[in-house]
């Protein structure tokens, strides 16, 4: 009987989700998402969410501002610049792939109609390397963080403006898949992303303030004191999934690409301020 009830509940919830997914456009989702935070933290300016948990934690913010005086990510920016300028074995450089220069983070992620997939910046960098006969970089740790630090630094101030083009239903599907991922419970501990970073944003988990979802994507890559180095957004996704005891997905595989697409869209209108520094 109880099982039947659970099944029914699940069915009702699933139907409810599908119905609501069909009923809202990305634009409506965006307004609802950002309004949620306006109501939850009426004194926080929307633009300030680029500072993550520090937008709502005055004590943590003081410590963080002290750290930012001598940013721990600075050496990574310099290394990244050298990578950007150093020619590949074939004599070409990244500039040949990205003729508009290193201030390009604001163009990602975007829907790539030809490939029929979400194109992320790390993916585009590796495509460039492969096209020039170089080995691709790993997506979570290592040199990719240096070049991403440099590109993010050069892109500071660009405004998040992810587009879900209406002329390709596959783009909307990718967005919807990312959204579904965000709101789906997973792992032994049964949390969705939204449980912590939407429903409970600002609450204290043991000693840590749960950061708001809004602005999550603006400051990556991030120097995390816990890591002792700079790490990528997909490394963080992996960590979150492990924390809820779920099997992480492949970095820049379809699930995390679509998640990045949805999550970055939710921060549309917010300036980029990477690389960041976090506890």
């Amino acid at each position, binding site marked *: 009987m109880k099982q039947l009830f659970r099944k029914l509940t699940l069915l009702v*919830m699933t139907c409810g989700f599908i119905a609501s997914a069909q009923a809202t456009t990305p634009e409506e989702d965006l307004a609802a998402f950002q309004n949620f935070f306006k109501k939850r933290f009426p004194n926080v300016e929307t633009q300030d969410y680029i500072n993550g948990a520090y937008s709502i934690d005055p004590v943590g913010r003081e410590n963080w501002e002290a750290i930012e005086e001598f940013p721990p990510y600075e050496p990574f920016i310099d290394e990244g610049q050298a990578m950007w300028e150093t020619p590949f074995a074939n004599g070409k450089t990244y500039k040949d792939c990205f003729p508009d220069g290193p201030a390009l983070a604001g163009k990602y992620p975007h829907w790539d109609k030809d490939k029929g997939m979400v194109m992320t910046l790390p993916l585009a960098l590796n495509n460039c390397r492969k096209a020039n006969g170089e080995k691709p970089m790993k997506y979570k740790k290592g040199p990719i963080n240096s070049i991403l630090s440099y590109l993010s630094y050069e892109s500071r101030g660009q405004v998040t403006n992810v587009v879900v083009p209406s002329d390709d239903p596959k783009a909307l599907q990718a967005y919807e898949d990312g959204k579904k991922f965000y709101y789906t419970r997973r792992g*032994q*501990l049964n949390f969705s992303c939204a*449980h*912590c970073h939407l429903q409970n944003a600002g*609450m204290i*988990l*043991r000693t840590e303030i749960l950061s708001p979802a809004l602005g999550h994507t603006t400051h990556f890559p991030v120097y995390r004191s816990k890591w002792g180095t700079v790490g990528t957004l997909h490394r963080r996704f992996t960590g979150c999934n492990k924390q809820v005891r779920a099997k992480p997905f492949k970095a820049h595989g379809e699930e995390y690409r679509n998640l990045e697409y949805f999550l970055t869209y939710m921060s549309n209108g917010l300036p980029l301020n990477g690389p960041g520094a976090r506890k």
Partner: protein
Amino acid sequence: MIGNTKKWIGKVGMIGVIAGQVLVSPTLLAGDADVAEGKKIAFDRKKGNCLACHNISGAPSPGNIAPALIAMKSRYPTKEALTEQIWDATIKNPESSMPPFGKHGILSESDFKKVVEYVWTL
């Protein structure tokens, strides 16, 4: 004789008064041990980790996501109701962020029972 008495007390599971001494039955002793062990499991970050979200009186650095664990017997009519809540909090509230400690096997059956015994005392 002493062995037999212990067995008898064990079987009946009640307080016996023998030769003017109060003997506490083994079942009750086990209950107290369960509560003490349950507390350890509840506080263990890798097991119950209740303090991540709940305040428990006197416990160090609790979270504030969920209600304080206090006056449990007035909040839950029976131990069974509390058991169900810890087993799977989404039965009562589908939006609950509390992990389903029993349903998902986060705690072993024995650890789960001990945690219930402990929380029921709060």
